[in-house]
């Protein structure tokens, strides 16, 4: 499934898709940035409630397919600008992290 298809699925919506055709392979859930960099795999969808500018750098360097902000969290302006500059896909979900992961699991 591509990031674009995921963003159109029930419960998810696009915030900014710089690379919509990126394939989603697996998922990682986490809010501690170094933990994410240590454990997430390239191509994962990364589900988090962290929304500051450093999320964009971590997503880019860890090469995840997209960031999914759970719990209705919105990225701040700096984070949004940094993500777009670095080609990072951002998706929103109102669900808690667990439910977002379960929903994602049924899709990929």
């Amino acid at each position, binding site marked *: 499934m591509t990031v674009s298809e995921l963003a159109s699925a029930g419960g998810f919506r696009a915030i900014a898709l710089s690379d919509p055709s990126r394939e989603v392979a697996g998922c990682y859930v986490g809010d501690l940035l*170094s933990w994410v960099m240590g454990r997430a795999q390239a191509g994962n969808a990364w589900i988090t409630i962290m929304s500051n500018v*450093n999320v964009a*750098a971590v997503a880019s360097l*860890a090469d995840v397919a997209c960031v999914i902000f759970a719990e209705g969290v919105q990225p701040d302006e700096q984070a949004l600008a940094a993500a777009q500059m670095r080609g990072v896909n951002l998706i929103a979900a109102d669900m808690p992290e667990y439910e977002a992961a379960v929903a994602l699991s049924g899709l990929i």
Partner: protein
Amino acid sequence: MAESLRFHYDVDGGNFTSAGQASVQVKNNLSQLGLDPAVIRRVSIAMYEGEINMVIHADGGSADIIVDDSCVTIILADKGPGIADVEQAMQDGFSTAPDNIRSLGFGAGMGLPNMKRYTDFMQIDSVVGEGTTITMKVNF
């Protein structure tokens, strides 16, 4: 590559908005050289962790990247407080980061362990009161 390529970056201290700029630049430079994305990812993460450490603990520093035929070498140097107990600092979960850093999602005590995890060689030279130099190598 007949000769090695070198890149030099200055890392600003105390600036979390721009933290990671050097790492992102290195990622772009290595991509242009056509390196394996998996190698680029390892170099980028190791360097970013080091960059963040220099911003948190040492008021910035410098980063030098050397690319040769079979290896990327990362040298991070700062004039910060130094690391009193390197063995303790290398343990998963050990952190001296202040609360404001933790609220940003850092300070989990995974920075140095991640740098070791993603590199084939890592050496820490640190003198308390003088600074720290970390040398890492990623083979390809």
